[in-house]
């Protein structure tokens, strides 16, 4: 456990040493802010609905961008040899890196807390869905981080890691909005498999165990696959 914390600290600090953190956070805020506020004033409703509808899709682009280097870079420069010959297990490494990426994804959401605070000043905001939405956003950030981490473990090329991660996350985030294209028999199954569907449930303010279980299972599968991939490489 101690080792997980050390790796987490190092990886999390790394984001803020390089300009990546600041660039990713500013572009994320620009994009999500622009999309949200462009329709916010037309609706004339004091709610964050528009924000939470966009969130799973926008995060699908940004989270893989912050996870892409986690393993790819280590494999590319060979530093995972120094890392894995220190007294750590592959599980420590995977968990530490995952925790750092999730924490960064959560940190990315922090400045957006100013939206509900502003809206509260304009009108009467229902805080239930807001809290639910942020819980869901943190979960979806962690889920995308786990998927991105897996994408990073399978290749030494960061760009490929980014694209693979983005494609998987984007599919998980958007398919629930395209269910009309699926045959009626499998609609429910497909719906249950998407992160967007479970996220929308939570962001209504109802925290259902089924949705939590969904996110935790995807995280578990992705992290376990990452661990197997890394162990396979050595």
């Amino acid at each position, binding site marked *: 456990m*101690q*080792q997980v914390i*050390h*790796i987490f*600290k*190092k990886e999390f*600090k*790394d984001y803020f*040493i*390089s300009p990546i953190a600041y660039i990713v956070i500013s572009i994320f805020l620009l994009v999500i802010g622009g999309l949200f506020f462009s329709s916010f004033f037309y609706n004339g409703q004091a709610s964050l609905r528009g924000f939470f509808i966009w969130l799973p899709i926008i995060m699908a682009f940004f989270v893989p961008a912050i996870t892409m280097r986690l393993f790819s870079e280590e494999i590319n*420069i*060979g*530093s995972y*040899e*120094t890392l*894995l*010959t*220190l*007294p*750590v*297990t592959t599980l420590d490494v995977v968990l530490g890196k995952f925790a750092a990426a999730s924490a960064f994804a959560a940190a990315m959401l922090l400045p957006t807390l100013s939206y509900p605070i502003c809206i509260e000043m304009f009108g009467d905001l229902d805080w239930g869905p807001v809290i639910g939405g942020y819980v869901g956003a943190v979960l979806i950030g962690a889920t995308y981080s786990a998927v991105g981490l897996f994408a990073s473990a399978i290749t030494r090329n960061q760009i490929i890691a980014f694209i693979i991660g983005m494609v998987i996350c984007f599919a998980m985030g958007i398919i629930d909005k395209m269910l009309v294209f699926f045959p009626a028999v499998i609609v429910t199954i497909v719906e249950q498999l998407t992160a967007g569907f479970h996220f929308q449930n939570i962001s209504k303010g109802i925290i259902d165990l089924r949705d939590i279980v969904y996110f935790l299972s995807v995280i578990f599968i992705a992290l376990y696959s990452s661990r197997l991939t890394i162990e396979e490489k*050595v």
Partner: protein
Amino acid sequence: MIHVKNLTKYYNDLCAVDRINLNISKGEILGLLGPNGAGKTTTLRMLTGFYLPTSGEISVKDYSIYDDALEIKKLIGYLPESAPLYHNMLVYDYLNYVADIRGIEQDKKLSRIKEIANLCGLNSIMHKSVSELSKGFKQRVGLAHAMISDPEILVLDEPTSGLDPNQIVEIREIIRKIGKEKTIILSTHILSEAEATCDRIAIINKGKIVADDSTEAIKQSAGKEVFITVSLKNANTETAKSELNSITNVKDVKQLSDSEGALSIRLTCGSSNDLMETIYKKVKQTDWILTEFHKETKSLENIFRELTKEN
């Protein structure tokens, strides 16, 4: 201290390491010598727990690599080939991070980092980022990384590769300094380095150990032949050759060069204590001028070439 038994590693169908046996005792400096691709790095990677062996057994102290890899990793400090480090970190931050992972207590950490920085000569670069460092400094940071927890065993994979002659001497001095109390395994393909730093040499070729003995014994095993080089001025080539050949114990006479009036001859001789004396007396009887006269034993290089040449 370290026991390696029938260690084998396959990469798919390629056999990189083939049933290696090694026993390394405490305080020994073992040089793993071999041509490129002989399996040195693979062997070291298995010793350090980075690769799992295909079959065979490695035990360090009483720990087995299969069951207690973590315990073994705690005992070993490892410098991989070409010291891969995180580019974006400062040297100090990096050592701090490694010290944390190695479980060095917080209150001793700073003094330990200072100590290791002194030993490896890192004081001037502690606040530079790794990507700005020259190859030699990177290698030293790698060495500091390996030694920070003061491990009992150090495994160094080609610690001097790619360095300039001054840096090579510096790194060797560090190794010799720490080698007094530690068990060190280092791989190299530079023979003079193995000769200069190691107590014991294991030569490895195509995944097999072809020689494993103390440095002295390996050099002696090459036979008792010695080479004596004589350079003469004012001498007729043919007479000089036949005169020298007539000395007992001289087996072969070979002319090396005949430039600017100086004749250079290489004598292959069986070992004999007063051989130099006899040759000198012979030369003294003539009116030749002796400009060069020295003896060399068969070098490690010859032994290495004999043991590892392609058939």
